[in-house]
Protein backbone atom coordinates (compact mmCIF):
# COMPACT_ATOMS: atom_id res chain seq x y z
CA UNK A 1 0.00 0.00 0.00
CA UNK A 2 1.44 3.32 -1.11
CA UNK A 3 1.87 5.87 1.68
CA UNK A 4 3.87 9.01 2.40
CA UNK A 5 6.67 7.14 4.14
CA UNK A 6 7.37 4.60 1.42
CA UNK A 7 6.91 7.24 -1.30
CA UNK A 8 9.56 9.45 0.35
CA UNK A 9 11.85 6.41 0.68
CA UNK A 10 11.47 5.74 -3.04
CA UNK A 11 12.23 9.37 -3.89
CA UNK A 12 15.43 9.13 -1.86
CA UNK A 13 16.36 5.86 -3.61
CA UNK A 14 15.89 7.65 -6.92
CA UNK A 15 18.45 10.22 -5.81
CA UNK A 16 16.18 13.15 -5.01
CA UNK A 17 18.02 15.13 -2.38
CA UNK A 18 16.45 18.61 -2.22
CA UNK A 19 12.88 19.26 -1.05
CA UNK A 20 10.74 22.38 -0.98
CA UNK A 21 7.11 23.32 -1.52
CA UNK A 22 3.95 25.09 -0.51
CA UNK A 23 1.51 22.93 1.48
CA UNK A 24 -1.73 21.22 0.47
CA UNK A 25 -3.98 19.14 2.71
CA UNK A 26 -3.90 16.32 0.13
CA UNK A 27 -0.13 16.06 0.73
CA UNK A 28 -0.23 16.70 4.50
CA UNK A 29 1.32 13.34 5.36
CA UNK A 30 4.22 13.88 2.99
CA UNK A 31 4.88 17.38 4.32
CA UNK A 32 4.81 16.03 7.85
CA UNK A 33 7.44 13.37 7.05
CA UNK A 34 9.63 15.90 5.27
CA UNK A 35 9.47 18.30 8.19
CA UNK A 36 10.37 15.58 10.71
CA UNK A 37 13.56 14.37 9.03
CA UNK A 38 16.85 16.18 8.73
CA UNK A 39 18.67 14.09 6.13
CA UNK A 40 17.44 16.49 3.44
CA UNK A 41 16.12 19.54 5.34
CA UNK A 42 12.76 20.64 3.98
CA UNK A 43 12.66 24.31 2.95
CA UNK A 44 9.33 26.12 3.16
CA UNK A 45 8.71 28.27 0.08
CA UNK A 46 6.36 31.27 0.26
CA UNK A 47 5.01 30.92 -3.27
CA UNK A 48 5.16 28.21 -5.89
CA UNK A 49 7.02 30.35 -8.43
CA UNK A 50 9.71 31.09 -5.84
CA UNK A 51 9.85 27.35 -5.17
CA UNK A 52 10.46 26.77 -8.88
CA UNK A 53 13.30 29.32 -8.74
CA UNK A 54 14.73 27.65 -5.64
CA UNK A 55 14.63 24.16 -7.20
CA UNK A 56 16.14 25.50 -10.42
CA UNK A 57 19.08 27.01 -8.55
CA UNK A 58 19.53 23.83 -6.52
CA UNK A 59 19.60 21.77 -9.72
CA UNK A 60 22.21 24.06 -11.25
CA UNK A 61 24.25 23.67 -8.10
CA UNK A 62 24.16 19.87 -8.45
CA UNK A 63 21.07 18.76 -6.53
CA UNK A 64 18.11 16.72 -7.74
CA UNK A 65 15.10 18.70 -6.51
CA UNK A 66 11.50 17.89 -5.61
CA UNK A 67 8.77 20.54 -5.44
CA UNK A 68 5.51 19.78 -3.62
CA UNK A 69 2.53 21.95 -4.43
CA UNK A 70 -1.23 22.14 -4.77
CA UNK A 71 -2.44 22.55 -8.35
CA UNK A 72 -3.52 26.11 -7.49
CA UNK A 73 0.21 26.87 -7.41
CA UNK A 74 0.56 25.67 -10.98
CA UNK A 75 -1.09 28.91 -12.05
CA UNK A 76 1.42 30.96 -10.06
CA UNK A 77 4.36 29.00 -11.42
CA UNK A 78 3.35 28.61 -15.06
CA UNK A 79 5.48 31.55 -16.24
CA UNK A 80 8.48 30.18 -14.37
CA UNK A 81 8.09 26.82 -16.10
CA UNK A 82 7.60 28.33 -19.56
CA UNK A 83 10.20 31.12 -19.44
CA UNK A 84 12.80 29.27 -17.38
CA UNK A 85 12.66 25.48 -17.01
CA UNK A 86 11.28 24.48 -20.41
CA UNK A 87 13.63 26.74 -22.41
CA UNK A 88 16.85 26.41 -20.37
CA UNK A 89 16.11 22.73 -19.73
CA UNK A 90 16.19 22.83 -15.96
CA UNK A 91 14.41 19.80 -14.52
CA UNK A 92 12.77 18.99 -11.20
CA UNK A 93 10.19 16.56 -9.91
CA UNK A 94 6.87 18.26 -9.18
CA UNK A 95 4.49 16.44 -6.84
CA UNK A 96 1.20 18.22 -7.55
CA UNK A 97 -2.01 17.55 -5.66
CA UNK A 98 -5.08 17.42 -7.89
CA UNK A 99 -7.67 19.47 -6.07
CA UNK A 100 -10.99 19.71 -7.92
CA UNK A 101 -10.47 16.36 -9.64
CA UNK A 102 -13.79 15.11 -11.03
CA UNK A 103 -15.54 18.38 -10.17
CA UNK A 104 -16.13 17.47 -6.53
CA UNK A 105 -14.38 20.01 -4.32
CA UNK A 106 -14.63 23.54 -2.93
CA UNK A 107 -15.61 26.14 -5.56
CA UNK A 108 -12.13 27.69 -5.86
CA UNK A 109 -10.70 24.34 -7.01
CA UNK A 110 -13.27 23.37 -9.65
CA UNK A 111 -11.86 25.20 -12.67
CA UNK A 112 -8.22 24.31 -12.07
CA UNK A 113 -9.30 20.76 -11.26
CA UNK A 114 -10.99 20.61 -14.65
CA UNK A 115 -8.15 22.16 -16.68
CA UNK A 116 -5.22 20.71 -14.71
CA UNK A 117 -4.31 17.99 -17.20
CA UNK A 118 -5.08 20.14 -20.23
CA UNK A 119 -2.89 22.94 -18.87
CA UNK A 120 0.01 20.53 -18.30
CA UNK A 121 -0.38 19.18 -21.83
CA UNK A 122 -0.78 22.59 -23.47
CA UNK A 123 2.32 23.94 -21.78
CA UNK A 124 4.39 20.90 -22.73
CA UNK A 125 4.88 19.62 -19.18
CA UNK A 126 5.34 15.86 -18.94
CA UNK A 127 3.23 14.23 -16.23
CA UNK A 128 1.71 11.01 -14.90
CA UNK A 129 -1.30 10.39 -12.70
CA UNK A 130 -0.36 8.32 -9.67
CA UNK A 131 -2.37 5.17 -8.90
CA UNK A 132 -1.93 2.50 -6.20
CA UNK A 133 0.09 0.26 -8.49
CA UNK A 134 1.99 2.40 -11.01
CA UNK A 135 4.73 4.03 -8.89
CA UNK A 136 7.61 2.11 -10.54
CA UNK A 137 6.39 3.04 -13.98
CA UNK A 138 5.81 6.70 -12.99
CA UNK A 139 9.27 7.02 -11.46
CA UNK A 140 10.85 5.41 -14.53
CA UNK A 141 9.14 8.02 -16.71
CA UNK A 142 10.18 10.76 -14.28
CA UNK A 143 13.80 9.61 -14.42
CA UNK A 144 13.74 9.57 -18.21
CA UNK A 145 12.30 13.09 -18.41
CA UNK A 146 14.43 14.61 -15.65
CA UNK A 147 17.80 12.94 -16.25
CA UNK A 148 17.75 12.33 -19.98
CA UNK A 149 15.56 15.13 -21.34
CA UNK A 150 16.42 17.58 -18.53
CA UNK A 151 12.83 18.74 -18.24
CA UNK A 152 10.44 19.01 -15.29
CA UNK A 153 8.19 16.03 -14.59
CA UNK A 154 4.93 16.22 -12.66
CA UNK A 155 3.26 13.49 -10.62
CA UNK A 156 -0.43 14.32 -10.24
CA UNK A 157 -1.74 13.06 -6.90
CA UNK A 158 -5.42 12.58 -6.17
CA UNK A 159 -7.02 12.65 -2.74
CA UNK A 160 -6.26 9.67 -0.47
CA UNK A 161 -2.59 8.92 -1.21
CA UNK A 162 -0.51 11.19 1.00
CA UNK A 163 -3.02 12.95 3.23
CA UNK A 164 -2.38 11.03 6.46
CA UNK A 165 -2.76 13.23 9.54
Amino acid at each position, binding site marked *: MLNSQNFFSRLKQEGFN*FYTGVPCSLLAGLFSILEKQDEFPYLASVREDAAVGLCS*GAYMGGKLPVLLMQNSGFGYSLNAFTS*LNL*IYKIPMLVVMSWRGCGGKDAPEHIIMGDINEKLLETSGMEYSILTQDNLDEVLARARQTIVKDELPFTILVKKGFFDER
Partner: protein
Amino acid sequence: MKGSEAVAAVMAELDDEPVVNANGFIGREAFTARDREANFYMIGSMGLASSMGLGVALAQPGKKIVVLDGDGNVLMAMGTLAMIAAAAPKNLVHVTIDNGVYESTGNQKTLSSQIELEKVAKSSGYKNSLVVTELDELKKAFRTALDSDGPSFILVKVEPNFDHNTGRVTHTPEEIKRRFMTAASR
Protein backbone atom coordinates in the same frame (compact mmCIF):
# COMPACT_ATOMS: atom_id res chain seq x y z
CA MET B 1 26.34 56.66 -10.03
CA LYS B 2 24.72 55.35 -13.16
CA GLY B 3 23.13 51.91 -13.41
CA SER B 4 25.55 50.63 -16.03
CA GLU B 5 28.53 51.83 -13.95
CA ALA B 6 27.21 49.96 -10.91
CA VAL B 7 26.74 46.70 -12.83
CA ALA B 8 30.20 47.04 -14.41
CA ALA B 9 31.78 47.73 -10.99
CA VAL B 10 30.23 44.57 -9.51
CA MET B 11 31.33 42.51 -12.50
CA ALA B 12 34.89 43.88 -12.28
CA GLU B 13 35.26 42.81 -8.63
CA LEU B 14 34.47 39.16 -9.35
CA ASP B 15 36.88 36.27 -9.44
CA ASP B 16 35.11 32.96 -10.22
CA GLU B 17 31.96 33.47 -8.12
CA PRO B 18 28.74 32.23 -9.76
CA VAL B 19 26.34 35.14 -10.40
CA VAL B 20 22.60 34.91 -11.06
CA ASN B 21 21.63 38.00 -13.04
CA ALA B 22 18.03 39.25 -13.04
CA ASN B 23 16.14 39.79 -16.28
CA GLY B 24 15.82 43.11 -18.08
CA PHE B 25 18.61 45.65 -18.18
CA ILE B 26 20.58 43.96 -15.36
CA GLY B 27 21.49 40.84 -17.33
CA ARG B 28 22.12 42.76 -20.54
CA GLU B 29 24.45 45.23 -18.81
CA ALA B 30 26.25 42.39 -17.02
CA PHE B 31 26.64 40.51 -20.32
CA THR B 32 28.00 43.65 -21.98
CA ALA B 33 30.32 44.59 -19.11
CA ARG B 34 31.83 41.15 -18.65
CA ASP B 35 30.40 37.98 -20.09
CA ARG B 36 31.65 34.97 -18.13
CA GLU B 37 30.73 31.30 -17.86
CA ALA B 38 29.78 31.73 -14.21
CA ASN B 39 27.11 34.31 -15.18
CA PHE B 40 23.55 32.99 -15.33
CA TYR B 41 21.29 35.36 -17.24
CA MET B 42 17.55 35.27 -16.60
CA ILE B 43 15.89 36.25 -19.85
CA GLY B 44 12.39 36.01 -18.39
CA SER B 45 11.04 34.81 -15.04
CA MET B 46 11.03 38.21 -13.41
CA GLY B 47 11.43 38.00 -9.65
CA LEU B 48 13.14 34.62 -9.59
CA ALA B 49 16.86 35.54 -9.64
CA SER B 50 16.81 35.70 -5.84
CA SER B 51 15.19 32.30 -5.26
CA MET B 52 17.43 30.78 -7.89
CA GLY B 53 20.50 32.28 -6.23
CA LEU B 54 19.33 30.85 -2.92
CA GLY B 55 19.08 27.38 -4.49
CA VAL B 56 22.61 27.61 -5.90
CA ALA B 57 23.95 28.89 -2.58
CA LEU B 58 22.39 25.99 -0.65
CA ALA B 59 23.64 23.43 -3.17
CA GLN B 60 27.18 24.89 -3.25
CA PRO B 61 27.87 26.00 0.32
CA GLY B 62 31.61 26.22 -0.30
CA LYS B 63 31.29 29.00 -2.88
CA LYS B 64 30.21 32.61 -2.60
CA ILE B 65 27.11 33.10 -4.76
CA VAL B 66 26.05 36.53 -6.01
CA VAL B 67 22.56 37.58 -7.03
CA LEU B 68 22.53 40.71 -9.18
CA ASP B 69 18.97 41.89 -8.81
CA GLY B 70 16.85 44.95 -9.53
CA ASP B 71 14.40 46.92 -7.40
CA GLY B 72 11.42 45.86 -9.54
CA ASN B 73 12.47 42.23 -9.17
CA VAL B 74 12.88 42.48 -5.40
CA LEU B 75 9.50 44.19 -5.04
CA MET B 76 7.90 41.42 -7.08
CA ALA B 77 9.41 38.71 -4.89
CA MET B 78 9.61 40.26 -1.41
CA GLY B 79 8.60 36.92 0.08
CA THR B 80 11.84 35.46 -1.21
CA LEU B 81 13.71 37.80 1.15
CA ALA B 82 12.06 35.85 3.97
CA MET B 83 13.10 32.53 2.40
CA ILE B 84 16.71 33.72 2.12
CA ALA B 85 16.71 35.03 5.69
CA ALA B 86 15.20 31.77 6.99
CA ALA B 87 17.70 29.58 5.15
CA ALA B 88 20.48 32.02 6.15
CA PRO B 89 23.11 30.92 3.62
CA LYS B 90 26.44 32.41 4.74
CA ASN B 91 27.63 32.35 1.14
CA LEU B 92 24.97 34.55 -0.48
CA VAL B 93 25.52 38.17 -1.53
CA HIS B 94 22.37 39.86 -2.82
CA VAL B 95 23.14 43.06 -4.73
CA THR B 96 20.12 45.08 -5.82
CA ILE B 97 20.56 47.78 -8.43
CA ASP B 98 17.85 50.31 -7.54
CA ASN B 99 17.16 52.69 -10.40
CA GLY B 100 13.59 53.37 -9.23
CA VAL B 101 12.08 52.33 -12.54
CA TYR B 102 11.24 49.38 -14.78
CA GLU B 103 13.93 50.52 -17.15
CA SER B 104 13.82 48.01 -19.97
CA THR B 105 10.08 48.49 -20.47
CA GLY B 106 10.17 52.29 -20.69
CA ASN B 107 11.05 53.75 -17.26
CA GLN B 108 7.72 53.22 -15.49
CA LYS B 109 8.16 53.98 -11.79
CA THR B 110 8.62 51.22 -9.22
CA LEU B 111 7.64 51.66 -5.58
CA SER B 112 11.27 51.71 -4.43
CA SER B 113 11.22 55.44 -3.66
CA GLN B 114 8.52 54.76 -1.05
CA ILE B 115 9.87 51.51 0.40
CA GLU B 116 13.26 51.21 2.08
CA LEU B 117 14.26 47.85 0.65
CA GLU B 118 17.48 47.63 2.71
CA LYS B 119 15.29 47.82 5.83
CA VAL B 120 12.94 45.15 4.48
CA ALA B 121 15.96 42.87 3.96
CA LYS B 122 17.34 43.67 7.42
CA SER B 123 14.04 43.12 9.22
CA SER B 124 13.47 39.92 7.23
CA GLY B 125 16.64 38.66 8.86
CA TYR B 126 19.56 39.16 6.46
CA LYS B 127 22.78 39.21 8.48
CA ASN B 128 24.01 42.37 6.79
CA SER B 129 22.12 45.03 4.88
CA LEU B 130 23.19 48.43 3.69
CA VAL B 131 22.55 51.06 1.06
CA VAL B 132 25.24 52.68 -1.09
CA THR B 133 25.02 55.71 -3.35
CA GLU B 134 28.60 56.19 -4.58
CA LEU B 135 30.70 53.96 -6.82
CA ASP B 136 33.61 53.75 -4.36
CA GLU B 137 31.20 52.82 -1.57
CA LEU B 138 29.72 50.08 -3.73
CA LYS B 139 33.11 48.56 -4.56
CA LYS B 140 34.09 48.56 -0.89
CA ALA B 141 30.75 47.17 0.32
CA PHE B 142 30.75 44.43 -2.32
CA ARG B 143 34.33 43.42 -1.53
CA THR B 144 33.48 43.30 2.19
CA ALA B 145 30.38 41.18 1.49
CA LEU B 146 32.39 38.72 -0.62
CA ASP B 147 34.85 38.35 2.26
CA SER B 148 32.26 38.04 5.08
CA ASP B 149 29.51 35.70 6.20
CA GLY B 150 26.06 36.52 4.82
CA PRO B 151 23.39 36.60 3.73
CA SER B 152 24.26 40.17 2.77
CA PHE B 153 22.02 42.68 1.02
CA ILE B 154 23.48 45.70 -0.76
CA LEU B 155 21.02 48.23 -2.16
CA VAL B 156 22.71 50.31 -4.83
CA LYS B 157 20.95 53.60 -5.56
CA VAL B 158 21.59 54.55 -9.19
CA GLU B 159 20.33 56.84 -11.94
CA PRO B 160 18.71 55.01 -14.82
CA ASN B 161 20.84 55.24 -17.96
CA PHE B 162 20.05 52.06 -19.87
CA ASP B 163 20.84 52.33 -23.56
CA HIS B 164 18.36 50.20 -25.50
CA ASN B 165 21.10 49.46 -28.03
CA THR B 166 22.89 47.49 -25.32
CA GLY B 167 23.23 43.99 -26.69
CA ARG B 168 20.96 41.17 -25.70
CA VAL B 169 22.57 38.02 -24.37
CA THR B 170 23.65 36.06 -27.43
CA HIS B 171 23.99 32.63 -25.81
CA THR B 172 21.00 30.29 -26.03
CA PRO B 173 19.23 29.50 -22.76
CA GLU B 174 20.64 25.95 -22.82
CA GLU B 175 24.18 27.29 -23.35
CA ILE B 176 23.73 29.70 -20.44
CA LYS B 177 22.68 26.81 -18.22
CA ARG B 178 25.46 24.41 -19.26
CA ARG B 179 28.21 27.02 -18.90
CA PHE B 180 26.89 28.05 -15.52
CA MET B 181 26.57 24.49 -14.21
CA THR B 182 30.11 23.67 -15.26
CA ALA B 183 31.47 26.84 -13.68
CA ALA B 184 29.43 26.43 -10.50
CA SER B 185 30.66 22.87 -9.92
CA ARG B 186 34.34 23.60 -10.53
